């Protein structure tokens, strides 16, 4: 690891100022991805801005919205009574991110800011049509994800909260990469009054994406069988030592059906 200056600002304004004033400064949330990256000397920040003292952690329900603070850990989301009541699929998703040690420190905001193409959370945020609140504005999920490791966040912009509309039905089904246990294919399905949304993580060449054909079919009939015969384009899938594009395309279908079954 290269050395850096460490700062732990006490206010959002100070954190934004520190990050905005220095392009080499980097924000530290849970650090579960960022610290390994630093250890491999793949990143050389001037200053690491620890977001841990900004009071961004917490879970609340307001009307039909579940609001999760950006620094809320996966473990907290998984164990939260509010989340388990409002969107149990989200608690289930959080309970299978990384491992127990990672879930104590990894945060929803960190995961979304990093937008790893095999992270779990982006699929939930996109499928649930969540909105991402930052210190500057509110961004809809459809606008937020812009390809792997790329988001709509401006330099220095800090996620503060994620607002989820509570769906009628939702579920997440994940096929884990055998080695890393990240999502090789993760499918989040959500049925709301506005319709059905299906978001896929892990599989695509360009990060999390919505599956229009699945959504159309499920809008007609929200059953696993509704997905029979609907292919996922193989040429848009990732391929690596753990699975071919064809395998991933197939798994997208299998996991989508399992998610729909679980959401009943």
């Amino acid at each position, binding site marked *: *690891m*290269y*050395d*850096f*200056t*460490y700062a*732990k600002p006490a206010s959002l304004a100070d954190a934004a100022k520190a990050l905005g004033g220095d392009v080499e400064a980097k924000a*530290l949330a849970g*650090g*579960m991805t960022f*610290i*390994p990256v*630093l*250890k*491999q000397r793949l990143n050389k920040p001037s200053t*690491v801005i*620890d977001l*841990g003292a900004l009071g961004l952690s917490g879970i609340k329900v307001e009307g039909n919205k579940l609001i999760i603070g950006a620094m809320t850990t996966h*473990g907290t989301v998984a164990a939260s009574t509010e989340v388990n009541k409002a969107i149990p699929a989200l608690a289930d998703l959080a309970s299978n991110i*990384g*491992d*127990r*040690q*990672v879930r*104590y*420190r990894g945060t929803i905001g960190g995961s979304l800011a990093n937008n790893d193409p095999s992270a779990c959370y982006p699929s939930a945020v996109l499928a649930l049509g969540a909105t991402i609140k930052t210190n500057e504005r509110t961004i809809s999920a459809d606008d937020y994800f812009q390809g792997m490791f790329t988001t709509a966040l401006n330099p220095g912009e800090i996620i503060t909260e994620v607002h989820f509309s509570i769906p009628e039905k939702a579920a997440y089904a994940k096929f884990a990469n055998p080695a*890393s*246990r990240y999502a090789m294919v993760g499918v989040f399905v959500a049925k709301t009054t506005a319709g059905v949304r299906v978001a896929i993580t892990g599989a695509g060449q360009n990060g999390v994406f919505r599956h229009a054909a699945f959504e159309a079919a499920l809008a007609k009939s929200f059953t696993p069988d509704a997905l029979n015969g609907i292919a996922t384009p193989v040429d848009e899938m990732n391929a690596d030592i753990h699975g071919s594009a064809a395998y991933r395309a197939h798994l997208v279908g299998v996991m989508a059906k399992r998610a729909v079954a679980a959401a009943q």
Partner: protein
Amino acid sequence: MPQISLTVNGKPVSATVEARTLLVELLRDKLHLTGTHVGCDTSQCGACTVQVDGMSVKSCTMLAVQAEGASVLTIEGLVNADGSLHPMQAMFREHHALQCGYCTPGMVMSAIDLVETHPEGLSEEQIRHGLEGNLCRCTGYHNIVKAIAAAWPLMHNKALPVAAE
């Protein structure tokens, strides 16, 4: 260089560290608590697991400065003042849940957290899943799972409920 103060195994500790110093480096290199091990560099193996404010964390994936004000418990801090072992340590020995001993401190720290956070009971499947963050190359896990199931009643002072199948 940052100055940090924290509690380690119940004792207050102050140190001057580089910002890049990992918690595990503070423990091993500065405080000479070498029971906490490093087995990988991708946060997979869990040999470095310690408890920070009661939560098991991978000390190779946390900066020492992030532990400012925290209470850290390592394997060295588990042994009681009279030299007797924590029930988890005792059950690891009883059930031969360690061979080379390298993953053991992290495995024990993780297992304690697993048992503490499941007062309602723990099935074998839950134990196996709960060890996702800890690798052992020697034992095949069989005896580790047995040891954790055996430690549960000792830590909760009641019999381990048999999971309804």
